[in-house]
């Protein structure tokens, strides 16, 4: 028994070490640390880069934007990942941001719902449970059914932080995949949900927010409001070492665009 426990411990410890952010020493590693929402896009980029360049180890530590930014500043990783712009006091620490992509979140309703535009405050009120009937926002008489994602989901995190509804949303359903959200909204005439813009299908209707439809252009130029940047954070004055720099260039290259789009977000350049 003791043996099993000790083997288990070794495995667990080993896994922890592997998952950690390793910036020092080995030239052939790229250590990234930060936003959990960026897991999909950075994971896809890392995987593609690893398979193109044998011998390179890519690591990603999902800790959250704030922690990732601190990690770069303290030199614990090569590239920090943040799903918000840097604050002034963070740029003052000598950090530089490069927008990798924009994550646009579409607000979706059933195609039979006559509502076409909702402003961001109203969306927040609907999710907070302050507005409960579609007729109050110009639709038919019917109880609004707010559909959301499970806790920890990057889309939920993005949606709630942009609309200012963190931890106070009153969901009728919390579903664990975008596909489920879309299917549920497509099947309930009174449902409202949110999903990454790239995943929205014809079975649901994406409303315009403050009069702006969610498209690649409106997300890029910032006029569509429910969106946030995915940012690569590096040190301003110190150059990256060779492998991380190559990875950084790869992320902004033409080749990476397809990978970024495939991960459900809009490439920045």
């Amino acid at each position, binding site marked *: *028994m003791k043996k*099993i*426990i000790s083997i*288990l411990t070794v495995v667990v410890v080993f896994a*922890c070490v592997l*998952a950690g952010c390793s910036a020092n020493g080995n030239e052939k590693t790229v250590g990234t640390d930060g936003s*959990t929402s960026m*897991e999909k896009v950075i994971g896809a980029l890392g995987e593609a880069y690893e398979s193109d360049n044998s011998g390179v180890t890519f690591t990603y530590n*999902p*800790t*959250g934007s704030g922690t990732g930014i601190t990690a770069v500043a303290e030199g614990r990783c090569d590239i920090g990942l943040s799903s918000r712009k840097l604050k002034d006091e963070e740029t003052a620490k000598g950090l530089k941001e490069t927008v990798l992509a924009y994550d646009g979140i579409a607000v979706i309703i059933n195609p039979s719902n006559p509502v076409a535009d909702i402003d961001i405050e109203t969306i927040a009120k609907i999710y907070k449970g302050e507005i409960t009937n579609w007729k109050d926002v110009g639709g038919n008489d*019917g*109880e*609004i*059914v707010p559909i959301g994602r*499970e*806790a*920890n*989901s*990057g889309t939920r995190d993005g949606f709630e932080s942009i609309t200012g509804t963190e*931890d106070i949303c009153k*969901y*009728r*359903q*919390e*579903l*664990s995949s975008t596909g*489920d959200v879309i*299917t*549920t909204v497509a*099947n*309930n005439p*009174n*449902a409202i949900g949110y999903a990454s813009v790239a995943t929205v299908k014809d079975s649901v209707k994406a409303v315009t927010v403050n009069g702006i439809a969610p498209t690649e252009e409106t997300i890029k130029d910032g006029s569509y409001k429910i969106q946030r940047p995915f940012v690569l954070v590096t040190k301003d004055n110190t150059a990256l070492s060779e492998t991380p720099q190559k990875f950084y260039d790869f992320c902004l290259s033409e080749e990476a665009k397809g990978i970024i789009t495939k991960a459900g977000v809009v490439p920045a350049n």
Partner: protein
Amino acid sequence: MKKKAKAIESAVHGVFLILGLITVGAVLLISIYLIISGIPAIKEIGLTHFLFGKEWAATEAEAKFGILPFILTSIYGTAGAVFIGTPIGFFTAVYLAKIAPPKLKHLVSSAVSLLAGIPSVVYGLVGMLVLVPAIRNIFHVADGASLLAAIIVLSVIVLPSIIKVSLTALEAVPKEYEEGSLALGSTSVETYFRISIPAAKNGIATAIVLGVGRAIGEAMAVIMVSGNVANMPNLFESVRFLTTAVSSEMSYVSTGSLHQQALFSIALVLFLFIMLINATLNFFLKKKKEG
């Protein structure tokens, strides 16, 4: 020659022993892993707060880890499914064992086997696309994803185990019992209810316990129809089960956090429930052997 045969014999014994140990080892490893990873969060949160806390809000700034809603939902959901599934399954089994013509019996039996083989994600999908909108329209509620939807899906899922095990138990009742009853002048329906069913009662109890075990462990089908919000259970409200509480949040949770440990603790609670059900099952099986 004899020596050689003996050597082969013991080698085969050894191989079988190893294969047996793999199974036992897997069970032990899972149990120990669950206990080791499930205890720390319970210690940190406090057993009563964890088991009887009415609020679950693991990602909020002031995190709350109360799993009473999940426990009650799992109990109500399972009880509801067995409550609906047992009479249907049981009478189907009586019909198949005693009344149905052989051709029809064969047809229904194969249908039941097929039902047992359908993956639970398919039940969930059908529930999501057909049952949930139907509940919304029939009961005039805003949304159909609810405890009721989960109970209905689960009661279909438990049907095959209830029917099959009850059927075997009913078929094992000695013919002489029934013939004796019929010879004394009772009708055939009287015979089934007064003689066959009491004689098979332990087998039928086993069937129900198996159904309970199947229902309480189901995750995939219920996650798709129950709405998955951590409310206290209510028939028309969105609810979250013990199984779905683990599976829906496990994928994004950060490694080593209290949240992740608490999910392991939920799994541990579920594990204890299933152990309890297994113990009950063994009790009935033992009684059946003795009786």
